[in-house]
């Protein structure tokens, strides 16, 4: 059963590598912010999988806080780009 979680972690790492490449290459500010948003969601999923690998229930709370607060930074950057902060 633990091998399924290893495969999951490998796939998440590959997705994160592609997001980082887009962050470095991206021509506009919107592309970089999209990469940051995707990396936030990937990291929330990865934290939950790591909590299952470590077998500790209390570790899920970190992913919960990250999922609640992670989108505020993206919204602030978007409002700045819109010019209406």
């Amino acid at each position: 059963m633990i091998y399924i979680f290893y495969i999951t972690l490998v796939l998440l790492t590959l997705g994160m590598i592609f997001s980082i490449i887009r962050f470095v290459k991206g021509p506009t500010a919107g592309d970089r912010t999209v990469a940051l948003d995707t990396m936030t969601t990937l990291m929330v999923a990865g934290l939950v999988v790591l909590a299952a690998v470590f077998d500790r229930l209390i570790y899920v709370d970190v992913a919960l806080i990250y999922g609640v607060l992670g989108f505020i930074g993206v919204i602030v950057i978007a409002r700045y780009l819109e010019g209406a902060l």
Partner: protein
Amino acid sequence: MSLYEIIGGLLSIIGASFLFLGGLGIYRMPDVYNRLQAGTKATTLGAMSLILGVGVVKMEDHWSWIVKAIIIIVFIAISNPISSHALSRAMYHRKKFPIIKSSDKNMDAYREVFEKQEREKEEKK
């Protein structure tokens, strides 16, 4: 292997595949809006499926795994479309229009409203 592990493992593999495809789409797509779609829609479905799968697998140990997993799923389902909508709106207000012009009139209806608003602003000045 119990039934919980089989169902949860299948959900986890499906979710991880969608997350990987979201990352790949961010690398491959040509435009900001296409990247936004690949990076938000596919990633939302993938994260929800993966977290539900982990909750189902660990439900044998303790029942509060599935409760916390459902709480995280609800927050992702609320917060991810908000940030996606704010970003696409910001890029539209910076006049970065989609590179592929759609033949469907309804898909680009917001552009006409936007240009009309801009014209009215200039007339007021």
